[in-house]
């Protein structure tokens, strides 16, 4: 016999209005009589309404997993199962999508069918982690639905103190501004770290994210421990006819306001004939002028990546942005990709060996000092790593001559 629909006067108020309503979606599932999830979702709606009444959450964690993996299922048991027994177990499976969140409808339909058979019928596309979140599964259904999803070719995402699911901007698939293959780089890294994703044993989480340029559409700089961001070394490409066309289109004053004046390093000037003068030595590759004058301007041709390390949110020492540890690296050939994966492994190993429990990479670096991190990874120091040099004299400098020698040797080697 099927359950009656719970009264949800508070949630009902989230059904009106122009934005698509998740409540309407949940009710659609709850009213889908005869389906295995109908009573399950009725019960869930009851608990959610109760949360809206009391303004408290009622889920607790636990231990649920799939055979062979130590992470990827987020267990949820209800603390008020006596009131809402059918949804007493409501676990989430984190599944990694293809980089760039691409699907064909055949695959997406097959996934929803499997989920309708075994789970709640509720899917978040996507979690902040970058995962497909299959939300709401009883313990005994976790393994069967995982088997089906895994056989479709999808693997489980990360959770806990391990390497996490990654995210990349759309990059070369559809963005002319992309300075490297963000989607390919994400695959190279993630697929080399599956063991650290599925069997977490690090001090805390480690996230990689990939953006094709400084616009950082993947939010890598702050939202990942290792942010890989596209850039270029040579001069930006300028199509002066298109510059003139843009000036003609929006007017000289607006062009100056929107492009010239907004350059953070005053690297731009408008010539008397409405062509653009670019001081490429001053340009910091911020992308602004290229964004505004997309047809006229492009990144240069000698492209590669910048790596920033240490981004994270507040807990525990406060928010940190990633900072530069590799100013430039080519990422074109198979060898380049191997080098990136190798560097990522050294980053993980150093983190595993040196971070305290529950410490993120950024906090570890703050504690030990950037130079120890760089030396541990064998990364050469570079003035691009600082906004300004030290302002405090409390430092012992008796190794100065050695350091000068190293710097000179490196520079003369580079000049050869």
């Amino acid at each position, binding site marked *: 016999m099927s359950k009656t629909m719970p009264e949800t006067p508070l949630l009902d108020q989230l059904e009106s209005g122009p934005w698509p309503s998740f409540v309407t979606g949940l009710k659609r599932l709850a009213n889908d009589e005869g389906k295995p999830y109908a009573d399950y979702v009725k019960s869930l709606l009851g608990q959610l309404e109760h949360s*809206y009444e009391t303004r408290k959450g009622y889920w607790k964690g636990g231990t649920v997993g799939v055979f062979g993996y130590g992470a990827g299922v987020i267990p949820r048991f209800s603390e008020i199962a006596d009131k809402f027994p059918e949804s007493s177990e409501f676990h989430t499976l984190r599944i990694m999508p293809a980089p760039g969140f691409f699907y064909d409808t055949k695959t997406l339909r097959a996934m*929803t069918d499997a989920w309708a058979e075994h789970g709640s019928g509720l899917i978040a596309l996507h979690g902040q982690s970058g995962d497909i979140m299959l939300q709401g599964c009883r313990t005994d259904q976790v393994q069967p639905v995982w088997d089906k999803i895994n056989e479709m*070719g999808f693997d489980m995402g990360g959770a806990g103190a391990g390497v996490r699911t990654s995210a990349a901007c759309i990059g070369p698939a559809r963005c002319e501004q992309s300075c490297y293959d963000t989607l390919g780089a994400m695959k190279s890294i993630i697929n080399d770290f599956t063991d650290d994703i599925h069997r977490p044993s690090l001090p805390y989480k480690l996230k990689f994210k990939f953006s094709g340029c400084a616009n950082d559409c993947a939010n890598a700089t702050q939202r990942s421990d290792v942010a890989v961001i596209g850039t270029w070394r040579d001069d930006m490409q300028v199509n002066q006819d298109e510059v003139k066309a843009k000036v003609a289109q929006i007017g000289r004053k607006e062009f100056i306001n929107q492009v010239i004046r907004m350059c953070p390093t005053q690297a731009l000037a408008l010539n008397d004939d409405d062509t653009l003068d670019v001081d490429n030595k001053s340009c910091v590759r911020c992308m602004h002028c290229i964004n505004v004058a997309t047809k006229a301007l492009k990144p240069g041709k000698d492209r590669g990546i910048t790596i920033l390390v240490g981004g994270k*949110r507040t807990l525990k020492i406060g928010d940190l942005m990633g900072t530069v540890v590799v100013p430039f690296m080519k990422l074109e050939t198979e060898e380049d990709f191997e080098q990136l994966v190798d560097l990522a492994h050294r980053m993980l190993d150093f983190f595993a060996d040196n971070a305290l429990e529950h410490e993120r990479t950024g906090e570890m670096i703050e504690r030990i000092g950037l130079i120890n991190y760089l030396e541990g990874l064998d990364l050469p120091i570079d003035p691009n790593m600082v906004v300004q040099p030290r302002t405090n004299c409390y430092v012992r400098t008796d190794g100065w001559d050695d350091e000068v020698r190293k710097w000179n040797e490196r520079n003369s080697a580079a000049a050869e």
Partner: protein
Amino acid sequence: MSALRQPVESGVMDAKTFMHPTLKKNYGHWAWHDRPRPGVLRHVAESGDTVWTVKAGTQRQMDVYTIKTLCDIADEFCDGYIRFTIRSAVEFMTTDEAKVDPLIARLEAAGFPVGGTGNSVGFISHTQGWLHCDIPGTDASGVVKALMDQLVDDFKNEDMPNRVKITTSCCQINCGGQGDIAVNIQHTKPPVINHDLVAGVCERPSVIARCPVAAIRPALVNGKPSLEVDEKKCVCCGACFPPCPPMQINDPVNSKIAIWVGGKHSSTRSRPMFHKLVAAGLPNNAPRWPEVAEVVKNILHTYRDNARSWERMGEWIERIGWPRFFELTKLPFTKYHLDTWRGGRSNLNASAHLHF
């Protein structure tokens, strides 16, 4: 029962597995793009191939029928290809310009607002909340639904000086991340400890280690090992709650909502910025959080009316100065706006630069 199946540890698939053939063909060879109208992107490849992308909002937490509706639309207009953005918008791509208007009409008719491109208010990046997280102080989907209902015109049009990325977080861990406007839970009272449970479920040293201000001490309560909180030190962050659920931080009245502004991930023009506290003490007023929506709309529209083209929220405020921001938005400036955390001194005005 048969032997358990070993997982196929395949990692992620190749991105091209599900990519529209025109995207595959022109991979890495796009020439330029523009936006023929809000909600639509046109990308032109070096080969001359052109792809129109129609972008629409979703509820993110979707029932299978909603996903099937999206699939039907993709089958009808886009050769069966579909993609989602990092902020849970859905993108439909076609090489046939004639399909764009009918596609938009079909999406709107099915209840998916078309927009979120260029200088619009994008979909709010958010998390799980009461629906699924084990530590939330508020809901996520509900807050976002309530806000997007009010911001839908700002989503559908490109009337902002630059992109506006709004985020929400239902605890101070802040899954939502930095935002031009961030709507986050802010607890105002120390955790209330359920001493009967601590001994049973919590690993006391790791809870003590988690506290950012070392406010937690081991204690014997009624003869049983438990914990105590130095309430003068406690910053009400809730960090002790995930490892120790008896440290009850969530409170229907005292868990408030705070609004932060001017966060930015991009290095475009200015360096990335953290968002800054501007308003707090707003009630966690489910199901529609009207007080939060008022403050968000006030800030958003003040920004829209005052910022110069391409200034992100944080850049605009840097130019006009904080006195002017508080004056324009009529938000009160309090002692809580002074940063007291380590490194917070760099947020003070160490100059004779003043705004009047």
